[in-house]
């Protein structure tokens, strides 16, 4: 009796490079927004030269990395998945550094997490989105707790921020799943139609 081989599903499903390429446009655009707005705000009302140096350096490094990824996309070259995943992790890390360097909980820079989370949630599979978002929320939660004044008002503001940030990632990935489902349905309909056409064409010579 032949033993049935059990197929184990990997925790993080493999993603085809062309599948990743579809979401990369959004990720790269979101990163350009982060770079442009980040530079503007870093220069605007800079408090100290040392802080400004760190911020500008980090943002310029991000811009160079994004230029490379954008060029790859424009030349229709496939970028390694690990580079794509690493770049998105770097986005979140850069925002976290900026949040840390500008006051933690009291900093408004956390709002840059919104476009970054949106971009990765529509580009990556659910498990990866969950891991990235969970990690980011964990880090930001810790930063918030460490830098917040211990009063209930601020804690509930922190919690509200975490819920809404999580909500944006959830909604982005929900849309990604809905669209995958719709696309597969469209492909199946097309294949069924093609099958029917081929069957009819095959029957014709027999009748003749």
């Amino acid at each position, binding site marked *: 009796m032949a033993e049935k081989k059990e197929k184990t599903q990997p925790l993080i499903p493999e993603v085809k490079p062309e599948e990743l390429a579809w979401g990369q446009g959004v990720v790269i655009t979101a990163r350009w927004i982060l770079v442009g707005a980040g530079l503007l705000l870093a220069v605007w009302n800079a408090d100290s030269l040392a802080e400004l140096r760190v911020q500008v350096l980090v943002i310029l490094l991000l811009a160079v990395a994004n230029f490379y990824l954008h060029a790859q996309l424009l030349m229709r070259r496939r970028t390694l998945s690990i580079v794509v995943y690493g770049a998105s992790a770097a986005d979140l890390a850069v925002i976290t550094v900026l949040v840390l360097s500008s006051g933690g909980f009291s900093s408004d820079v956390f709002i840059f997490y919104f476009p970054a989370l949106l971009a990765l949630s529509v580009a990556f599979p659910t498990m990866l989105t969950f891991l990235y978002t969970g990690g980011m929320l964990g880090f930001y939660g810790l930063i918030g707790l460490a830098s917040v004044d211990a009063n209930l008002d601020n804690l*509930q503001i922190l919690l509200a921020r975490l819920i*809404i940030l999580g909500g944006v990632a959830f909604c982005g990935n929900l849309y990604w799943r809905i669209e995958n489902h719709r696309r597969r349905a469209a492909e199946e309909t097309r294949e069924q139609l093609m099958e029917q056409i081929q069957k009819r064409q095959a029957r014709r010579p027999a009748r003749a």
Partner: protein
Amino acid sequence: MQNMRMPEQEAAEDIFFGQAVMIWARWFVILAGALIALWAAESIAELALAIGFVVVLMGINFFVHGRYLMERPANRSLLLLVAVVDTAIITLIVLAWQGRTGMESPYFIFYYPMVLAFAFVFPPAMAVGYTLVVIAAYLGANFLTDPGILISSRSLEALTMRLITLAAMGALGAYYWRVQRNRRRLAAEGSAERVELSASAN
């Protein structure tokens, strides 16, 4: 093979399938809003008022979610009306909740999931329109609470940052909506090579 769907049918499907995202975005706002209402209220009157907003949003969402589950989803006009009500309620929270109003209000973040969800469901032109309405509502709330906002460089900086990210949510949502529409059309046309090539071009 040509695309078998008419643009009108595609738009109806966008609304049919996409409204789940709007519903879930609203549930997240309700969750955060209920938490704030229960936790932060300092008097019975304040709690009653705050929970009133939450109950209105919950009522709307129960109705819309219920219809969706019964496979009789809300139509385009109803979704537009509900989106306007969402914006009005969030703007009222920014305008009046607990003394922390205008730029001081931390609840402007409720706009973000709503703008994103709208951009996923409606065509880009409408998404841009809705994003502008939200930005105008937020700007209006800030000017009403502090007309001198443009004089303070700090406030202007924070406001610019918030408006840029808010606009980015609408723009990125609309961009992804277009990417997905092209991809779906290519999938229906059935040329695998074209699907891959266009993926690189997008």
